[in-house]
């Protein structure tokens, strides 16, 4: 059974106008109908560009954002049915690691106090000092770190403190939102390795949210690719790179630079047109059709594609009407000089102008 199941999850933020009398003039559909599940002990990677809703998804799973529709089922319990007290108790079992390690630590708290807070909150008895030293040891910090304050550490060390806090209550699920993107390149690998090591030792289940597909692929068993609030492809990590099915995944993969001139010079790049449309007015039909090099007349615009396993593929789902044809090469991307051009229309209304 899945440890975490996300069913048709929607998080819409109202756009408000007016000073005295606020009224809602629209909604930002940050997360707009996401279905995902994670097995115990595995890692699900969620990738996408800024504004695709991946961070909101992570927070909504932990009930830190108001859910508009749908449900999050954790170990058989629908979290939205829990009262405040039960939800707080449930938080012991699911924790979060944040992007900016400095911002996510109270500057006035010493490390010992940061790490003891979850224990105090959940009424753990016993020697908190001992547990703090244990946690520091687990994340590779010296026990002298306990008496120091966040601003005295380097970025990598701070993220270790953040991770130590997340595992303090021995949770089962950890949601890591861009855990390494704020760190220097030479430090990122340390934190990635630490996360992997902890997973092995503590049997953790991860949801790793990041924009860096290379990092996500390294750490994840399965990857979900998000675009404008929706999941467009879910696949095992290797399958996603070896056999990307969605046009967006293909262009995303081709856009990531690889530190090898031989590869770079021979690669074929799929450059996307224009910018990501606004989540307040997502394009009709397939959300990606305004930028898709493979788009076909009418159907991409008229019909919302559902996540499905295309013919001849197992354990790999994609939301594209033409996945088979794109995969077989029957359909070719529109490559022209135009691909360098930004859409003529301003972003936001590009949905209509792109046709």
């Amino acid at each position, binding site marked *: 059974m899945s440890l975490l199941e996300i069913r048709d999850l929607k998080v819409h933020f109202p756009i408000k106008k007016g000073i005295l009398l606020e009224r809602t003039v629209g909604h930002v559909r940050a997360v707009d109908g996401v279905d995902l599940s994670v097995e115990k002990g595995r890692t699900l990677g969620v990738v996408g560009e800024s504004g695709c809703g991946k961070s909101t998804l992570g927070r909504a799973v932990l009930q830190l954002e108001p859910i508009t529709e749908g449900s999050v089922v954790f170990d058989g319990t629908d979290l939205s049915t829990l009262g405040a007290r039960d939800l707080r108790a449930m938080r012991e079992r699911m924790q979060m690691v944040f992007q900016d390690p400095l911002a996510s630590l109270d500057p006035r708290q010493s490390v010992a106090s940061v790490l003891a807070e979850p224990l105090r909150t959940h009424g753990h008895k016993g020697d908190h000092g001992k547990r703090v030293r244990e946690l520091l040891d687990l994340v590779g910090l010296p026990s002298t770190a306990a008496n120091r304050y966040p601003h005295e550490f380097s970025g990598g060390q701070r993220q270790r403190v953040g991770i130590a806090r997340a595992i303090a209550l021995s949770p089962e699920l950890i949601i890591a939102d861009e855990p390494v993107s704020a760190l*220097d390149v030479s430090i990122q*690998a340390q934190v990635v390795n630490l996360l992997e090591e902890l997973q092995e030792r503590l049997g953790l289940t991860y949801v790793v949210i990041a*924009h860096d597909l290379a990092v996500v*692929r390294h750490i994840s068993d399965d990857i979900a690719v998000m675009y404008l609030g929706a999941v467009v492809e879910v696949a095992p990590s290797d399958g996603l790179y070896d056999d990307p099915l969605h046009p967006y995944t293909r262009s995303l993969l081709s856009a990531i*630079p690889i530190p090898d*001139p*031989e590869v770079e010079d021979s690669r074929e790049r799929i450059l996307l047109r224009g910018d990501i449309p606004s989540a307040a007015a997502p394009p009709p039909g397939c959300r990606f059709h305004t930028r898709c090099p493979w788009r076909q007349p009418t159907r991409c615009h008229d019909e919302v594609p559902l996540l499905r396993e295309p013919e001849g593929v197992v354990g790999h789902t994609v939301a594209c009407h033409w996945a088979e044809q794109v995969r077989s090469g029957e359909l070719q991307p529109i490559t022209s000089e135009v691909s360098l051009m*930004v859409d003529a229309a301003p972003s936001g209304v590009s949905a209509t102008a792109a046709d």
Partner: protein
Amino acid sequence: MTRVQEQVDAIPGRGQGAAPLLEVRDLRVTFKSRGRRPVKAVDGVSLDVAPGATVGIVGESGSGKSVTSLAALGLLGKRGVEISGSVKFDGDDLLNMPEDELRAVRGKEIAMVFQDPMSSLNPVLTIGRQITEILERHRGLKGQDARDQAAELLLSVGIGDAVRRLKSFPHQLSGGMRQRVMIAMALACQPRLLIADEPTTALDVTISAQILELLRSLVVDSQTALVLITHDLGVVAGLCDQVHVMYSGRIVESAPRRALFANPQHPYTTGLLASVPRLDQPRGVPLLPIPGSPSDTLPWVDGCAFAPRCTRRVPESVGCPPALLPLEGSEPSHLVRCVNPVPEDHT
């Protein structure tokens, strides 16, 4: 105790015959602020940029990669900054140039593109006004001529519907679009050198690919020299002829890009390459992080700044700073600053 005389560095990027467009010699930048120890942000950087060359400077935060370019162009201000060494552009000394002459060189001969286009654009002026202003000041174009030229520039950086876009304000554009505008403004005077400081770091992957492609097609094809400053080895791999890797204020390795990636010699370079996951490698390859953090450095006068984090550290790493020189038997253009470089067969 007698100190071993420091060997003289070779000059990274020195071309064969042709006079360099930009010539930096022993540039040092020290930040001094009240109540703190002075920080040597740049600690002896020399490099040549040949006309039309594409040069990458790679380093992490604190490596001095950005400060090098800012100091070279006199953009650091005077307060609390100490700059020594020399920076020559086409034979003219930029460090001792009067401010008004320097301003004329910047913008006309040398242009810059920064990481955050929003903070480099004036929020209360339209894009068109900002571009035509440059054209008026540096190229003497007026009125409709300037506007036509501005529209043409926007088209060249891939912004369609240019005439209407000229009337937009910066906040009405997306991040990628703003960076295109910055590039258009940088290219407005057909400069001979473009310095791009992390031009794609703030952008999404697919947008970043568009901007890099734009730099490739516009700058490289027009024979403008490009200095690309980045933390991402992947970005330089596809774009730059010569790559300089910086650590703690000095260049530690410099090589043509193919040589650098095929045969990295400095432990820091190999460390960087081994610590980032690569999409084209099988997934099981473990990451080999560089231990410690960029703040664990040694002052260069005491030896190799990377020594405290280096897995190939030998007793000679400490005591005398290594010089930047070609290894025996390797290309003269492949320089490394290390007493115990990584052997060729090492992967």
